[in-house]
């Protein structure tokens, strides 16, 4: 399936609201293994995206993803800015001439995060949610359990990328905050497919 403009708008609007609602939880998760500002940073980014899209509503999916990307890149302030920003920027480029299959779209976003973060799965990052979601979409097996399991699996991973990697073994037992915000992203997506 392909995500059309209205579905994609609903998806991202729900994601933006969900980030704002979960700001404190994201900060808390980040306090345990990072610098404690993932919620605050993401909230700043999604509010900028909301404002930008209100001022100039997107007329196609490429513009929607690009405006989202630029808002996150410019306003987040932490590592999640360029990571989410690159994902949405690459997705915007991929749908510029014509819309593509959702599974391919999410895989392109995932590859963007891997490139920008020079990282891969099993490093306790947002990729540990993005990649299983991309796989689930391509096998037509994506549901909320798949997303929750991916998130919860980050608990047992020793962080080898990002701020949490400074903690090494001590990062075990904590959820990755970027994986949590990614879970919110894809839970919102589920409501549109």
């Amino acid at each position, binding site marked *: 399936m392909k995500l059309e403009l209205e579905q994609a708008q609903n998806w991202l609007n729900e994601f933006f609201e969900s980030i704002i609602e979960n700001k404190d939880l994201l900060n808390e998760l980040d306090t345990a293994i990072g610098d404690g500002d993932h919620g605050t940073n993401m909230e700043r980014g999604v509010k900028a995206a909301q404002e930008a899209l209100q001022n100039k509503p997107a007329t196609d999916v490429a513009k929607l993803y690009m405006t989202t990307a630029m808002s996150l890149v410019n306003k987040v*302030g*932490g*590592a999640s*800015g*360029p990571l989410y*920003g690159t994902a949405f920027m690459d997705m915007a480029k991929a749908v510029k001439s014509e819309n593509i299959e959702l599974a391919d779209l999410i895989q392109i976003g995932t590859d963007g995060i891997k490139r*920008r*973060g020079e990282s891969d799965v099993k490093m306790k990052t947002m990729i540990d949610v993005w990649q299983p979601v991309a796989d689930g979409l391509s096998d037509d097996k994506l549901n909320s359990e798949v997303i929750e399991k991916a998130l919860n699996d980050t608990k047992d991973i020793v962080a080898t990328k990002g701020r949490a990697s400074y903690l090494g073994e001590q990062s075990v037992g904590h959820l990755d905050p970027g994986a949590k915000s990614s879970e919110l992203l894809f839970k919102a997506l589920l409501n549109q497919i």
Partner: protein
Amino acid sequence: MKYGILIVSHVNEIALGVTKLIKEAAPDLSITYAGGTEDNDIGSSPEKIQAAIDENTGDKILAFYDLGSSKMNLEMLMEFTDRDIEKFDVAFVEGAYTAATLAQISSPIESIEESLAPLKIK
């Protein structure tokens, strides 16, 4: 060809401090910096980094950064810009200082790279 130097840090005062330090070693080069978020909080602002790139008058910009998102924002901007920017994954202060010393006397880029190699952090 004239070098320029770009300093990117999560903290405005760190960027300012490193810039001050390396200006001593390279008084004749264009050295620009970006530190912290737009509100001068701790973080990284692509808009600030872009402005520091725009201000830099070097033909080849040697770029130094402190932590993860400074690096990622820098890399993202490098994908877009047509300026000649080389980013070094080296010990921030010592790397920038070493490069500044060599860039000031217009050392070839190969010798700058060679001198920075032992300072590589990953």
